[in-house]
Structures are given as structure tokens and as C-alpha cells.
């Protein structure tokens, strides 16, 4: 039987990709344009970015569908094309994937709030995420990654929808946390233990965090997750904070060396699936791949 990504997670630290949106922007996405539209307008460009991550050593990449729910696409008037754009996203990554590598169907937040803070109902969210998850599965995703969620309730709606619409696929779920004196919390105030417990109960295959914090800050965050769950843990840190030079060049506050320098500690703290978020590029993944394949970072078998 074909090896799944969860089989690989049991063997060694699994490597995801780094930033995708920033790579798309670097290739000329016009300001105010919808990144997902490039799945049909510039599929070769998206495919080349995925290929660069696989070439750098990613075991899996995440598809260009972060903002692909119809609720988010509505901001560009593209809500009617949700199924088409998500299926295309998965197909492009599938085409770029070498044999034995994986495609993760990315599901980002809607950018809106559930009642009472916003207008959305859980049923509306689940409908939109189910449509997205189903299309990603049809396009050839091997697993789904619900990511950058700032509200546990929205993350749970996405997880439920993904599990019902893509029955066979493992679902990874990551939220984005800030560090406070009392610990790590999402924008909505969800703490790590509550997040891990709720996601585990709802059937997530792996849980964790991405974005906002840098790789140094992720060491403690991953440790907090490891205390809360025995599930595989996903960790995709930012390369620090971006700063824009007056020349328009973006630089991140963590250097490549500093970023990668904390990866062994992140794995030691309990992460089983690592990768990068904003500000990370194929060269980050290449360095991380070297570290993992040198074999001097132990695989924890907490599962």
C-alpha cells in the first residue's frame, strides 16, 4: 500500500514548504489581485514555485488556495469560481510533485468573524469550507492543511467540513498565536491547551501553529503543544517581522542562519512536521532538509 504522509511522520521529521504568497508576489502578482486567480491565469508560475520547494527538499507543499473559500474569494468577486480554482490549485501541485512526495490542500481563514463578533454562522462556514475541501481532494491533494486560523471555532468548522467532504484525507490544523506573559493565545483568546484538546476531539490528524511568531519564539510554543497533546505537531514559523526599505525591498528580521538555527530546538521540543511561513524561501527549506537528513535530529515517537 502507498505510504501516506502520516506514515512518513512516524518515521522522521517531515518537511513542508516555506512562504508561497511572497513567492507569488515576487513573480509579479499585481497589487490587489487575487493570488488564487493565478491557478488558471499563470499555472506554470505556480507550478514552478512548488517545484522549487520540492527541489529544495520539501516532502509536501501546500497548494495555492489559502484564500480559496468562497467567502474570501467574494472580496474579488470570484466566489462562483471557488470549486474550479481549488481543484486547479491541487492539480498544479500534483503535477509538480515528484513520485512519493505529497500535496497538502491549503485552507486559510475567511477573514470574517462568526456571530456575535461578525455576521457568519457556523453552517455558512462549513458549507464554504466543504466546497473548498472537496475541490482540493478532487484535484489530487493527499492531505488538507487548515492554517493560519485565528479563531478556534472557525478552525473547528473547517476541520469538520474537511473531514466530511474529503473523507479519506488526513487533516492538519494550525492556528496563529501571539506570545503574552500568560502564554500563547490567538486573536480570539484561545490558548494552546484548549486548541489542542478541541482539535484532537474533532479528529485532526496533526495540530500546531504557523505565522506571526519567529522560529526562536516557536520553540516554547511547540513545547506548550507537546504538553497538551500526543498528536503529531506542525510548526511553520515566520522569519521574524518584515521591514520595508525605502527602496521597496522587504527584509525579514531573522536571517536565514538564525531561522534555521532554531529548527533543531523546535523538533526537540516536539514538532513532527516543520516548514516555514512568511519570509521563508526555498533556501530555508534546503538548509532544513540538510539538517533533517543528516539524521542528527532525533525523531520523537510520542504518538
Amino acid at each position, binding site marked *: 500500500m502507498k505510504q501516506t504522509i502520516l506514515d512518513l511522520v512516524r518515521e522522521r521529521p517531515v518537511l513542508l514548504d516555506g512562504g508561497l504568497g*511572497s513567492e507569488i*508576489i515576487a513573480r509579479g502578482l499585481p497589487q490587489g489581485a487575487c493570488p488564487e486567480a493565478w491557478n488558471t491565469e499563470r499555472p506554470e508560475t505556480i507550478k514552478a514555485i512548488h517545484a522549487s520547494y520540492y527541489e529544495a527538499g520539501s516532502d509536501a507543499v501546500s497548494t495555492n488556495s489559502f484564500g480559496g473559500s468562497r467567502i474570501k474569494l467574494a*472580496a474579488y468577486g470570484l466566489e462562483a469560481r471557488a470549486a474550479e480554482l481549488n481543484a486547479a490549485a491541487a492539480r498544479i501541485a500534483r503535477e509538480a510533485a515528484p513520485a512519493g512526495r505529497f500535496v497538502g490542500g491549503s485552507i486559510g481563514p475567511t477573514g470574517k468573524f462568526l456571530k456575535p463578533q461578525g455576521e457568519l454562522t457556523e453552517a455558512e462556514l462549513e458549507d464554504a469550507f466543504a466546497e473548498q475541501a472537496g475541490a482540493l481532494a478532487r484535484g489530487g491533494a493527499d492531505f488538507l492543511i487548515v492554517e493560519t486560523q*485565528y479563531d478556534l471555532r472557525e478552525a473547528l468548522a473547517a476541520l469538520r467540513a474537511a473531514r466530511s467532504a474529503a473523507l479519506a484525507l488526513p487533516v492538519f490544523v494550525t492556528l496563529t498565536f501571539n506570545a503574552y506573559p*500568560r502564554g500563547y*493565545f*490567538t*486573536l480570539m483568546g484561545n490558548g494552546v491547551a484548549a486548541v489542542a484538546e478541541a482539535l484532537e476531539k474533532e479528529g485532526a490528524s496533526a495540530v500546531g501553529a504557523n505565522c506571526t511568531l519567529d522560529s526562536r519564539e516557536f520553540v516554547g510554543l511547540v513545547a506548550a503543544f507537546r504538553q497538551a497533546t500526543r498528536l503529531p505537531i506542525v510548526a511553520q514559523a515566520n522569519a521574524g*517581522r518584515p521591514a520595508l526599505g525605502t527602496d521597496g525591498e522587504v527584509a525579514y528580521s531573522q536571517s536565514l542562519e538564525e531561522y534555521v538555527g532554531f529548527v533543531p530546538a523546535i523538533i526537540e521540543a516536539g514538532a513532527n512536521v516543520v516548514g516555514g511561513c512568511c519570509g521563508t524561501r526555498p533556501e530555508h527549506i534546503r538548509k532544513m532538509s540538510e539538517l533533517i537528513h543528516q539524521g542528527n535530529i532525533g525523531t520523537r515517537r510520542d504518538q
Partner: protein
Amino acid sequence: MNKEDLYRSMRKAIVEGDKPAARQMALEAVRQGLDLNEVIDKGYVPGIQEVGDLWGKGEYFLPELITSAECMKAAMDVLQPEMTKANVKSRSLGKVVIGTVEGDIHDIGKNLVASMLQANGFEVIDLGTDVKLERFIEKAEAVGADLICLSALLTTTMANQKKFIDLLGTRGLGGKYKVLVGGAPATRKWAESIGAQGYAENAALAVREAKALVGR
């Protein structure tokens, strides 16, 4: 209820997000014929300030902030018509034109800043997201704004904050408005480098910065 107890209850209603109580206290203040500007300044505003501080410390999060801002609005909905009726001018800290810059549709942070500025006594005109730079100027000129607040989440659209300040200069309006910038990639250093007068990392600090800029 004496005045001091009433003010304390108002503050508590805002901090605890108790909308019926916030409204009830406002009605009580009207019934007692109190100076309603003082009621706002000494009863309700300290509550929303405490909420901002709790948010800054990571004790309160977005749901609490939104609930407290709604409580503030519930109280104002009682007080403001009474003030209009009595021909009392409500004290405003200043007029703010706010929006997310063109090319950017992210509005969570912008909405938080808008509601906290409003709750603290600014008059806020929210232009929404993906706002053309020209439109900020048109609106500010039309309403006689004191502050213009520009939000951007993306490193690419953050560049429009600089463009905006350059545009103000080209129009000969440099210095006429205080410009505040914010958003995930923005920093104090960025604000200084583009010549913005203000920067804030979060909604609570935005209130503090805005007040300082209007000399309050």
C-alpha cells in the same frame, strides 16, 4: 445612587461587557440630570481605557474588546440624543478618517482601531478596505479631519502608506493632517522613515497615539 457610585458602575459595565447595565446607567444619569459630558469622561471612558489596557496585557482579546465597544455604543445611543435635545455639544477628541489602503482587503485590525477610537471619543469616518489614496484626501478635506489612519497588512500594500504621504506633499497638504500608520508589517521605524506622524502596534496603543497627536 450617588454620582461616584454611578461612575464606578458605568466603568464596571464597560469592563465586564454588560450591555444592559451600560444602558441602564446612562438612563439613570439622564434621569438625575447630570452633566452628560462629565458622565462620558468620568464614567464610561475610564472603562474603555481599562479594556484597552487589559487587551494590551493579553488579558482581554478581540471578543471582549468588541463587546465593550458595543456597550460603549449602547450608552452613547442613550446619551447623545439627550445632549442634542438639550443643545449640549458633545465633546469630540477630533475627526478621524480611517481605511485600509488600496490593493489590500484586510480589515480586522482596521476595524478594531476604528471602534476603539470611536469608543474613546473620536468621531470616526471609516472608508472601508481597498481605499484609493485620493479618496482619503477627498474625505479628509470634506469633513475637516484631524487625523488620517492608514492600515495595511501586506508588505506590498504597506508601500502605499509612503505613497500617501508623498501624495499629501504633492498636493501641498503636507502637515495639514496627522497621519497614523499601522498593520502587521508596519513599525515605528517605518512610520518615521516615510514621515508619518504616528504609529501604533495595536488598537489600544492607537488610541494613546491618536490622543497624543491631538494634544489630549
